[in-house]
């Protein structure tokens, strides 16, 4: 077909930011996907709870210490997480470098109480369905922390290389911060299911 020039796009920016960025939308799509997964696991928990004559089955409720410590760390991490997102938007490299190191550490920190959470459950995955669903919830969420912290550490390393100053990488930092919010927020209903519903 013959072409007729109808539009000149040469003045447009060379990279889409936030709502104009495919990775931003991609991150949302993955959050919807994984959020559905978390919702289904919670639905399984409630379904099994509804069936059981008593809940928890054959065990004391989980000890509160490690899980609560982890919850506190995760919620606290939201503050620097919001800051790093803002710094990335402002393209303040010095602060982004500082922030990404902090976020890497705050990603590793919850893994320490998490390691103790499994033994604090007072049940094993192969004891009964109650133990199975608790371990699955904790395992699923741990996978999310581990993958996101690995991503954060790789980004942190990148920030100190020649690639770090690229606007694209700052977009990655924002998307990574967005995803960390998701990792924190999905934990809250799991925390209530694992630690507080058995105490009702």
């Amino acid at each position, binding site marked *: *077909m*013959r*072409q*007729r*020039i*109808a*539009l*000149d*796009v*040469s003045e*447009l*920016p*060379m*990279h*889409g*930011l936030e*709502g*104009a*960025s*495919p990775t931003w*939308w*991609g991150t949302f*799509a*993955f959050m*919807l*996907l*994984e959020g*559905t*997964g978390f919702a*289904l*696991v919670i639905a*399984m928990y409630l*379904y*099994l709870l509804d*069936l*059981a004559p008593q809940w928890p*089955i054959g065990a004391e409720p989980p000890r509160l210490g490690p899980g609560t410590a982890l919850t506190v760390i995760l919620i606290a991490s939201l503050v620097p997480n919001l800051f790093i997102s803002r710094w990335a938007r402002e*393209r303040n490299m010095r602060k982004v470098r500082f922030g990404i190191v902090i976020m890497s550490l705050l990603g590793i920190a919850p893994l320490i109480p998490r390691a103790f959470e499994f033994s604090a459950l007072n049940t094993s*995955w*192969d*004891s*009964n*369905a109650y*133990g*199975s*669903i608790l*371990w*699955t919830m904790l395992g699923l969420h741990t996978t999310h922390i581990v993958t996101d912290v*690995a991503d954060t550490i*790789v980004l942190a390393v*990148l920030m100190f290389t*020649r*690639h770090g*100053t*690229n*606007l*694209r*990488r*700052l*977009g990655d930092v924002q998307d990574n911060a967005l995803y960390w919010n998701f990792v924190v927020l999905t934990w809250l209903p799991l925390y209530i299911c694992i630690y507080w519903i058995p105490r009702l």
Partner: protein
Amino acid sequence: MSTLDISSDPRDTGLDERALARRLADLWQTPRGIIGTLSSVDHKIIGRRYIVTAFFFLLLGGVLALAIRIQLAKPENRFLAPDLYNQVFTVHGANMMFLFAVPVMEAFAVYLVPLMIGTRNIAFPRLNAFSYWIYLPGGITLWVAFALDMGPDVGWFAYVPLSGPQYGAGKRADIWAQMITFTEVSALAVAVELVVTIFKQRAPGMSLDKIPLFVWSMLVTSFLIIMAMPAIMVASTTLILDRLVGTHFYNPAEGGDVLLWQHLFWFFGHPEVYIIFLPAVGMVSTIVSTFARRPIFGYLPLVLALFATGILAFGLWVHHMFVVGLPRVGESFFTASSMAIAVPNGIQIFCWLATLWDGRPVFKTPLLFVIAFIITFVIGGLTGVMVASVPLDTQVHDTYFVVAHFHYVLVGGAVFPLLGAVYYWYPKIIGRMMSERLGRWVAGLVFVGFNLTFFPMHILGLIGMPRRVYTYGPEMNWGSINLFVSLSAAILAAGFLLFFVDAIRSAFSGEPAPENPWNAPTLEWATSSPPPSYNFERIPVVSSSDPLWETPETLPVATGLRTDRRELLLTSLSEANPQARESSPRDSIWPFLAAIATTVMLISSIFSAWAVVWGSVPIAVTLIAWFWPKGTPEDAA
């Protein structure tokens, strides 16, 4: 902010078409050689691979169907032993659903959506490559296992306790569960790509009310995949945990529940039907409009019907479980919602009929398949309304009536439009026409063969023949109908065989296809057949929902994109106003290597749970290498 030198800033502005085409080809072409082949991120190459692979699985699944028909042709037949028969019907079903139907629909979208919305490649093209390389081993796993007498034998929905650790000895059910993981990872990846492609990469001016209906259908389908497939992932993972590490999700003795499996499976399984059917709806709308020679009647109701179907799809799953003894009020709710979904489907049928009625229909092969579809699908829809009613469902549950019903909706509702779509888009994809003469024979044989094969199954079901029995006694009096069905299946098989012959022969000796052989209105027909690696020399600008009918001679285009990096346009979500020139990633071997690493982990995990731990290390390494910036011009921002 960029570390790259962008002082030299070559643009397509002012370049003549030949020079531009040469530069774009240098930039977008997939390199030759084995590494180039494995590294390709071109949505057309990947889409073509998907389509060919999916049709190969259709062929294999069809062979199993014929084996079933030979076995059932007469009472007390000994062609297939009972254990093999169990594997055959399970692999047939699992193969058709997970390796053929869903992938082939997504495959067409992978190929067509970027062309139909006027962009150069799909969003996240490397993820797209990864999705194919993870789909392929999933399929190979199932079929190699079957060849080794390790094929799943628990039915395509793998109900517990049959598939659980107590009854499902050996690795057969694990193969099923892991095949699910492979194919769902692949399907979910493509769904995310499609959502982002459709949201952000539409040609300037293609506002929401100008999106082609096939693209709408794939958008809704993608959201269904994103929200339904996690259920089967959770289900298959918990099943494998029960089998491998001794969890008790489905063990009633330890607080688990077998019906939990059915809820999870059908929360996925019912939307799955629409994941297969909605793309077909998009194909039908496209074909009907082109061959009726008029814009589709009722664009808005058709789009709303897609959404209504997509939403209602999540409120139907319990109608697969009417006989398990659920509370009456629940059954009534699911009966009502199951019947309600007939409304949007009815609206679609009326819109298509109105388009044909008011148009000047040209009865080429694709339209013949659409007519075959409308007749067959309406019959399947009617039996669907029948089995939505609890008393009737209780009577025919697990009989051949149900087998007939779901083949009518899946083959009639999805495979017929798919075959029409192959005849319709083959010239674009291959650059040659398929045979119109053979096409008419294919349409006739498949339509007649299908109805003769499957209609009598309704009767078999009503007179009590259960599904999934390897044989039956002569005193049941099912022999003559079964023999008739099996003979009719030969007609159906002949139709499919002829289709494959036509498809393969036409690739070599079909008539060369022009740009727009059907005089169709959508953008994929505005570029050569087959399209070049970069799809369009310049990104089209759209001002109508049927752009090529609006301006048949000239294509309004955008200029100002760079010619030294893979660049495409991002536009706003609703109005499709240009927002940015975005780069599109180059070819990379890492998605292939990441898929290999994932395959090793998934297969090993069937045999040792620790594989999940050590197996993630190579996956992490390949993923980091995949995402690490390579300093190409695409990195500039």
